[in-house]
């Protein structure tokens, strides 16, 4: 297993300087994500304009994979409509779990997460924020746990 595949520069950068970190007051949607196994906590707030995510922020404490994944996700979904976010969710899920999934161009920087699938115990770290986003958009339960 190659550590460089897991901890790519994009991941390390987003871990050190998470984008869209914080919380939106008067948010239209919000959800908490928990990974009880490692104590990671994530709080996501979303402001919507109709179907479109106008703003999104996250805060919490987590490992490099979970922090970078959340940071990359906020960048990727900001300005997108719900339907497009769902599509992206499915693509990221495939990227994280299918052994030979090729990252298609539409994933952009999210493709940096492909190394995670070589480390099965870490997949939950990368997917926590996406499940939490589903919850914040009302697509799932209001609190998410990886267990």
């Amino acid at each position, binding site marked *: *297993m190659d*550590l*460089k595949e*897991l*901890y790519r520069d994009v991941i*390390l950068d987003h871990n*050190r300087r998470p984008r869209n970190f914080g919380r939106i007051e008067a948010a239209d949607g919000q959800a908490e994500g928990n990974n009880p*196994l*490692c*104590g*990671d*906590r994530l709080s996501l707030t979303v402001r919507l304009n109709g179907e479109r995510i106008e703003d999104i922020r996250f805060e919490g*404490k*987590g*490992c*490099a*994979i979970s*922090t970078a994944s959340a940071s990359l996700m906020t960048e990727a979904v900001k300005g997108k409509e719900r339907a497009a976010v769902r599509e992206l969710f499915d693509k990221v899920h495939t990227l994280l779990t299918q052994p030979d999934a090729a990252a298609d161009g539409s994933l952009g920087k999210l493709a940096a997460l492909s190394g995670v699938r070589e*480390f099965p*115990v*870490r997949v939950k*770290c990368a997917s926590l924020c996406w499940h939490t986003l589903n919850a914040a958009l009302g697509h799932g339960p209001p609190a998410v746990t990886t267990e």
Partner: protein
Amino acid sequence: MAANVPLAMSAPPLDAQAVRREFPILATTVNGHPLVYLDSAASSQRPLPVLRAIEDYETHSHANVHRGVHALSQAATAAFEGARERVRRFINARSVKEIVFVRGTTEGINLVAQAYARPRLRAGDEILISALEHHANIVPWQMVCEQSGCTLKVAPINRRGELELDAYLQLLSRRTRLVALAHVSNALGTVLPVKRLIEAAHAHGAVVLLDGAQAVPHSHVDVRSLGADFYTFSGHKLYGPTGIGVLYGREELLAAMPPWQGGGDMILTVSFEKTTYNELPWKFEAGTPNISGAVGLAAAMDYVESLGIDAIAAHEQRLLQLATAELTRLPGIELIGTAAHKAAVLSFVMKGVHPHDLGTILDTEGVAVRTGHHCAMPVMTFFGLPATARASFGCYNTEGDVERLVAALGRAREVFG
């Protein structure tokens, strides 16, 4: 246990290389590196004598216990009850009636919570624990509090991870009916001055349970000299199998307690009108027990005594001191839990690297440590941390293992810059 340290230091040194040859799993290669196993506080590995004892029992002696007149049933019963006597000697209990086989420490605590505390405690009564406890020594008492209306009190710790003795003493009162404490903290390695804590609790009429899961592998435990009313520990942290553990209880306490679970083996007679319960200790052992587990545990105790528990403790203390010194020198490493008296546990965090990432990086270097909250979330909250990395030592660890840990931590620093 703290009092044993000077004695332990004078014990003849352990031949760790010879010990390692007894543990076949240590020859495993992990991610291209020879395994460095530093997770014995979660579960230790088993030596050949334990593996052979289990195989021998399963191959030649297995049947159900206490049931048949046939030869194998007698052999199995002899092996199982022989294991009980082995345990009695190991912890110096007065009688085998005081040795109840359970699945592990967690079940031992739950048994006392449900069969001792729940029927006796009422609103206004208090259970006292410490802020160092494993979830297994918190949640069963919270359940009793919900069921009986009694109150849970928590004695605080200081920044070194030591129990605040004065606060503990002040929390004791005639309302305190039960005190439940870790003998050694699993998350930090702190050794509690349990003899003194027990004396103080007894002075207020409280009954004391000790969670000995992390103490028994590292020190000579004599339940009578400690004065513990209940003492419980797990086989798999003592180089024995999983699924077997021991609850020691003073005979008069166990005798006065109702059974916990009902079923076969715990009865003398059953009719639809009236059932009479079996004698101690079988009253608390409903159903077919973990016979091979008990046999394996007895073999593990033989093994530990053949090495000498003082020699093991001294060996681990040397490794702990070496690792503490080495990690203190590394930039960005902070040790969590710096009590004056510690067992073979080193909890730490690395600045800028989450423990979970550290765990993955160390694993790619073949070094197995535990990362997470160690089933002690209140301890993590006290230190303001989501998690730590924890290296823990056993009889088979070496100075070379400490060097590999230090090198792997250096690799983590490289990756994260």
